[in-house]
């Protein structure tokens, strides 16, 4: 009961924030009935998916301060579990998604146990490495289609299919991921106020002090990493049904891992709205840049340059991102 109360309790935010949040929520709820291009629809779906990835990352990376650059491997585990179960055995999304979460969480425990013995940069590098290794394994694993990946052929499934999550129109995917998005926010709103949330912030502050307060630092990190993983895996499963064509190269690439972390850091690591703000800026930027640069293939590296600039700006000016700036201004006003 207290869990639900806490999840729905946003009273510690100023009225202005809640008004903006409510307006955004209403906009998102009615977006599909407003006139829009299919490109805009795809972009908003991406925004919702990446917000969820970012929320997951934010648990361990933001509140816990453990920079994780390997989230793509869990996108892959979720996506592949759902795709394999659907194409090989015609198993429902609603079953394959939790199975994918189990695989992801299991893998996160196997990795987390040794990885969290590492500190700072070493941890970040190790997460990149494990993600790349897993991607390479999938690229040579015939059972999952190796480098070709898996195609979920929509012809086999008449639309709309809520069991397998195969729809012809994007609007179904839209509302589904929107529901996940709202659930994600409620979960994160509970998480940030939970015991684990507080313990993580203490760990980020000073691990030695955290231990002296009875916190099992290693275990707290592993648990949180599993939570982050579960978030990512759910969206990965969704990604498989939505994209319908998954390959190691685009589901598990380093780009995805970095984009997830970067978004959350740009918006504000360790804050509720940070990942959403970050996704709201970077995802449209990314898709419109791609659209705009489509013809000018020579300039394709420009999105990477923009990411690099953002990383530099965050580390030079405000490690807590846009939300950090907002908070600073507010504190000064008081």
């Amino acid at each position, binding site marked *: 009961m207290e869990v639900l109360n806490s999840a729905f309790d946003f009273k510690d935010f100023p009225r202005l924030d809640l008004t903006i949040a409510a307006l955004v929520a209403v906009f998102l709820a009615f977006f599909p009935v407003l006139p829009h291009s299919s490109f805009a629809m795809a972009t908003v779906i991406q925004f919702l998916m990446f917000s969820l990835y970012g929320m997951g990352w934010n648990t361990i990376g933001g509140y816990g301060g453990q920079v994780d650059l390997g989230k793509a491997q869990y996108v892959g585990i979720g996506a592949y579990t759902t795709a394999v179960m659907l194409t090989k055995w015609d198993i429902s999304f609603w079953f394959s998604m939790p199975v994918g979460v189990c695989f992801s969480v299991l893998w996160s425990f196997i990795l987390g146990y040794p990885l969290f013995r590492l500190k700072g940069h070493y941890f970040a590098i190790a997460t990149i490495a494990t993600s790349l290794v897993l991607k390479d394994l999938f690229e040579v694993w015939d059972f999952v289609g190796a480098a070709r990946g898996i195609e979920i052929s929509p012809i086999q499934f008449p639309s709309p299919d809520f069991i397998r999550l195969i729809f012809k129109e994007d609007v179904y995917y839209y509302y589904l991921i929107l529901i996940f998005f709202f659930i994600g926010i409620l979960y994160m709103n509970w998480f940030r106020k939970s015991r684990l949330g507080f*313990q993580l912030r203490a760990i980020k502050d000073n691990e030695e002090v955290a231990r002296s307060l*009875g916190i099992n630092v290693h275990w707290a990190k592993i648990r949180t990493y599993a939570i982050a993983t579960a978030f990512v895996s759910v969206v990965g499963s969704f990604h498989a049904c939505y994209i319908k064509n998954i390959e190691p190269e685009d589901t598990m690439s380093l780009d995805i891992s970095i984009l997830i972390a970067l978004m959350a850091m740009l918006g504000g690591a360790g804050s509720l709205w940070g990942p959403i703000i970050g996704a709201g800026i970077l995802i449209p930027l990314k898709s419109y840049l791609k659209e705009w640069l489509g013809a000018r293939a020579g300039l394709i590296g420009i999105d990477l340059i923009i990411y690099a600039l953002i990383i530099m700006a965050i580390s030079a000016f405000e490690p807590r991102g846009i939300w950090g700036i907002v*908070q600073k201004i507010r504190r000064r006003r008081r």
Partner: protein
Amino acid sequence: MALLELQGVTKSFGGLMANYDISFSIEKGELVGLIGPNGAGKTTLFNCISGVFPLSSGKIFFDGEDITRLKAHEVARKGLARTFQVYVASGDMTVLENVMVGCFMHTRSRSKAKSTARQILDDLRIGDLSEALVHELPVASQKRVTMATAIATKPKLLMLDEVAAGLNPGEIEEIMGSIRHLHDDLGMTVILIEHVMELVMKISHRIVVLDYGRKIAEGPPEAVSRDPSVVKAYLGERYAQDSTVDGG
């Protein structure tokens, strides 16, 4: 039965004996001072007791239990809380949130943690700082916050590492008042490190003196302050000789 008992605690860093064969015990309800010159091994001893460092040899019993091999968080859960000599609060947590982390050792409920934290802050007379960010506070207040956070874990033994260092006389008076309050009114058992002798002399029942990693004296404040080896450790060989000459 003693609340805390050290038996031959030894800790070496490479060739350096930071603690060598230290034995003493603390009874429930005592207020013990641990003193010694810079580098004597006081902080190292706290680290050994609280499970930060594994011992090179020796044993530590707490409340009748052997805690020698426990990890830091396990020791904390047994009821041993401590503050840190050098404390860098870098994060974005408020004072209240910091203290709540301590409270969360005994409850999952946020509202319970919050109300207990408020009580503790009021009790240490820093309730008005609740919403301030820890790293923005002056040192004196930060030290009180770390004390409050330690107390929030409801310890059986509170270990304070130089909570008065770097404070002005007025602030020292205040923090000593808080320590007395914790001990006299709340019945807490306390061991505190200070390297300024006068300060500890005033409030401790008993004093343990370390020098070069060894325990060189133990006893009531007056006796310890007259002990030639203590005087020697603090003021150098020559002074010790002079004073014995003077005395004789």
